[in-house]
């Protein structure tokens, strides 16, 4: 029963989801609306509770066991609790205050300030590291070893030049040629890949709905 009930639920909701997409009857539509607007949101709310619970449990265990870098777990937990309190009780910005005061004199710590001054620079820093790794990789690994690699190199050059206004200064038609590479040969190959991917998604979905693929139930997957 422990495995059969989830399988039955997936079978019924999976088939209903597909049917609702094609059947415009009022009764089907209204049940579908309840599923989408109410049931899915309740499930999403549970996933939020699970997510917060999981991160708290993970870091508390790390602190208890004094695992490697356990000190950083305190930072994660403190940030989680403080931003949650400020976000829930502190309002949105100084013009829309909440029940919790979010400034001490001119020092403000409402949620938008925290977001703009901590979250944005931290995330941008992590992402911008990519440019450095990419440059190093381009220098060390991007070699014209054979015909395929040379073609790739030439296409990359044209696209890089086409992606900056300097390309037009070199040759008026260079940006158009770069766009042609994206619009024609790239599109042709992408379409082929997309067909394959979509057919794969369809087949996998069907296997899950029909209970052939049971990896999502946990316990190592398979039948």
């Amino acid at each position, binding site marked *: 029963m422990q495995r059969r009930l989830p399988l039955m639920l997936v079978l019924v909701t999976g088939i209903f989801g597909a049917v609702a997409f094609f059947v415009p009857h009022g009764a089907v539509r209204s049940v579908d609306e309840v599923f989408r607007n109410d049931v899915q949101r309740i499930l999403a709310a549970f996933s939020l509770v699970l997510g917060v619970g999981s991160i708290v449990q993970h870091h508390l265990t790390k602190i208890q066991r004094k695992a490697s870098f356990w000190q950083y777990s305190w930072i994660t937990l403190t940030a989680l609790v403080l931003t949650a309190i400020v976000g829930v009780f502190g309002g949105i910005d100084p013009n829309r205050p909440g029940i919790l005061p979010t400034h001490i004199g001119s020092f403000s710590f409402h949620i938008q300030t925290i977001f*703009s001054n901590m979250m944005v620079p931290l*995330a941008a820093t992590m992402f911008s590291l990519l440019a450095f790794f990419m*440059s190093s990789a381009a220098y060390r690994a991007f070699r014209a070893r054979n015909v395929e690699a040379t073609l790739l190199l030439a296409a990359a050059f044209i696209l890089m030049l086409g992606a900056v206004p300097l390309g037009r200064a070199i040759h008026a038609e260079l940006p158009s040629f770069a*766009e042609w590479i994206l619009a024609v040969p790239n599109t042709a190959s992408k379409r082929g890949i997309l067909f394959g991917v979509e057919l794969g998604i369809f087949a996998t979905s069907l296997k899950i709905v029909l209970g052939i693929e049971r990896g999502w139930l946990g316990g190592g997957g398979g039948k």
Partner: protein
Amino acid sequence: MTPQADSARVSFWTRLQAIDRRWIYLVLAAVVIVPLLFPFKIKPKATTPVQKLFNYIDTMPREKALVISIDYTPDTRAELQPMVVALLRHAFATRRPVGVLAMAVYGLGLGEEALSQVAAEFNAHATNHEDSIINGEDYVFWGWTTPPLTVMLGMGERITNVFPVDYYGARTESLPIMRDLRNYDDMGILVTVAASAMPRSWIVYAQVQFGVHLSCGITAVSAADFYPYVNSGQFTGMLAGMKGAAEYEELVTAKMNKEGLDWGLRNRGTEAMSSQTAAHLAIMAFIIIGNIGFFATRRRK
């Protein structure tokens, strides 16, 4: 050439091949930072996908709304936020209703930042109520809700059912703008600005089911993934990367100047183009030097 000179040349290329990566990092940091501090003048010219989106928004019926879905996170803010700002300026300059929603929870802060910036730019020059950009009348920020499937399908029926309250806690039913913005039928176009595969989901659930006009603003690295949808007409134009943002900014600036709104606003995408140009040239130089070294050492072997 003497064997000694030849050997010295080989060792130079060999050493160059094994250069400490920190030198590469230093050069890249310099070519990114210096043009940001001392930018050189670049005037981007709109490519076809950018011009197509601009023309569509510019000529769509006045009562139809521009809806922007903030589907990216702060890591790609530098590349994508200028697109949202330019789109908002275009819509406000042509007095079109605007709806903004977030599919990523981080999009809330980014959407709020862009809306408050552009609304403040217009309100600083407003002389009366008609000139002003008012929340709830000229624009609405629906905020974020999950899961995306519920949002995309639900907005085709009734937006107020999906977002009963807006980001600021007001009942959406009570907002004047929502009287004429009920579902996809009232939208001129929905632009999904994303650094993920979210634009594809908008096609599958919003366009295929409800026929809404779509376009997208995406990072340069994912542009290749979305060209098939631009070619098929499923996306009405596209803004790809910082260059796409800069091109759109130029079109909007020209439009605003023509309308007498010459306020000298900062265009972040255009400003960053000199830095991006220098970085691209540096990477190309790295590739060329790396390949010269590769062939020089291979020939000797």
